[in-house]
């Protein structure tokens, strides 16, 4: 069964709960079909459909089949085969049962007549009809208060909390220029070097600043940077050396790749 039908919440006079529970109770004869307001179910389903943006044709189809079956069930229950029902009883029993029902109804008709007469008797009596005036809000009474205790409590809250050191969280950033000069000095001695080997033993922060220094040198056109593959060693070489190798057609274009 489509979920939209199965989960349909119903709030009828004779039943309150999900649609599938109603079906179960009907099949178990725990509720008489004649007691169920079918129009109420249809309205609930249509309202559920209206809440959704798209039309669920599967759910509509399931619902039509089920509601049609329920309507037939209710119709059969409301108009039973009276002759077959009576044939199951002896004439005396049938007469007794009918007499009991009629007598009960007659009692209520008598009561209704009495109510009608009572209304007629009181036709000339008028009284004020309206909602009860609002009752005053009860005064809130507090227990005996001790202001000094309140002062103590506030004073306790007002004390400045102890200073918590966060020095261990401080990050020390060496200047980028320090690494710029360092890499320039290296390139004076050597034509190229590996970045990883050069920064080995430094902290993560220092390695990051060193990489920024590389980018700075690259921006100035002093160096060329290459990396054969992701996570492979980053190789730095002098820019003029890289240009000469490019002239030889052997230069590898540096491509920045994100890890």
């Amino acid at each position, binding site marked *: 069964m489509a979920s939209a039908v199965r989960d349909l919440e119903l709030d009828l006079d004779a*039943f309150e709960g999900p649609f599938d*529970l109603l079906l179960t109770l009907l099949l178990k004869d725990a509720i008489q079909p*004649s*007691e169920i307001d079918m129009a109420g179910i249809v309205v609930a389903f249509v309202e559920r459909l209206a809440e959704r943006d798209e039309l669920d044709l599967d759910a509509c189809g399931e619902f039509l089949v089920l509601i049609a079956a329920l309507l037939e069930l209710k119709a059969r229950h409301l108009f039973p085969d009276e002759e077959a029902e009576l044939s199951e009883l002896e004439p005396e029993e049938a007469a007794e049962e009918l*007499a009991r029902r009629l*007598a009960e109804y007659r009692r209520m008709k008598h009561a*209704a007549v009495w109510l009608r007469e009572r209304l007629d008797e009181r036709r000339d009596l008028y009284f004020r009809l309206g909602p009860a005036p609002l009752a005053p809000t009860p005064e809130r009474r507090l227990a005996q208060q001790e202001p000094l205790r309140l002062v103590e409590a506030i004073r306790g809250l007002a004390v400045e909390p102890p200073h918590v050191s966060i020095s261990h969280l401080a990050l020390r950033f060496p200047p980028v220029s320090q690494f710029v000069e360092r890499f320039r000095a290296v390139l004076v001695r050597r034509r190229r070097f590996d970045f990883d080997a050069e920064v080995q033993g430094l902290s993560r922060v220092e390695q990051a600043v060193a990489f920024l220094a590389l980018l700075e040198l690259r921006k100035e056109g002093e160096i060329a940077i290459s990396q054969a593959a992701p996570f492979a060693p980053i190789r730095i070489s002098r820019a003029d050396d890289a240009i000469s190798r490019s002239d030889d057609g052997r230069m590898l274009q540096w491509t920045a790749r994100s890890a």
Partner: protein
Amino acid sequence: MDRPLRLIASNPVDALARTVEALLVVASQPLTLDELAEATADGTERIETALGLLRERYSEGRSGIVLQKVAGGYAFGAAREAAAACACLFERPVERGMSQAALETLAIVAYLGPVSRPEIAGIRGVAADSAVASLVERGLIAEAGRESVPGGAVRYRVTALFERVFGLESLAALPRLDDIGEDQAAIRDRLLEVAEARAS
């Protein structure tokens, strides 16, 4: 010089009677003895004495206002002699256009309540939906829980307004229904006669 109106000059509950009178004027629903006692911070016996004084003063033929004991409490209403004038200005929406079906449904709820729509329909032999809805709208009956089964039907009972409209001190004041034993026997005999006639 104006002198304050004295209900009964020599009665010791004179002041209390005036206070009770004021409470009943302000109230739009009957006030019980307990409510009056709580509001006046006085005993119920003295309240009853004060109400006796008021009933004497506010009675048909003596005042345009009548003190009524109704719906478990006390309330002021208009005297019958003022009915024509009242009818010019005020409607009676609760009783107006009450159908036979509504009255029969009301009788079932009053005598058998709390009772559900299916039970009402079972007695009347026809659906009671519109009659119940009409009575709820008039304020004569109200929901009183559900039947104690999963997804049980809503049950209904009569309200305090029902008692007031029909002038009942409580539901116990409803008349005892006639003993219908003979009726039932007579109905059964007629049915058997009809059955025998068809068989022959």
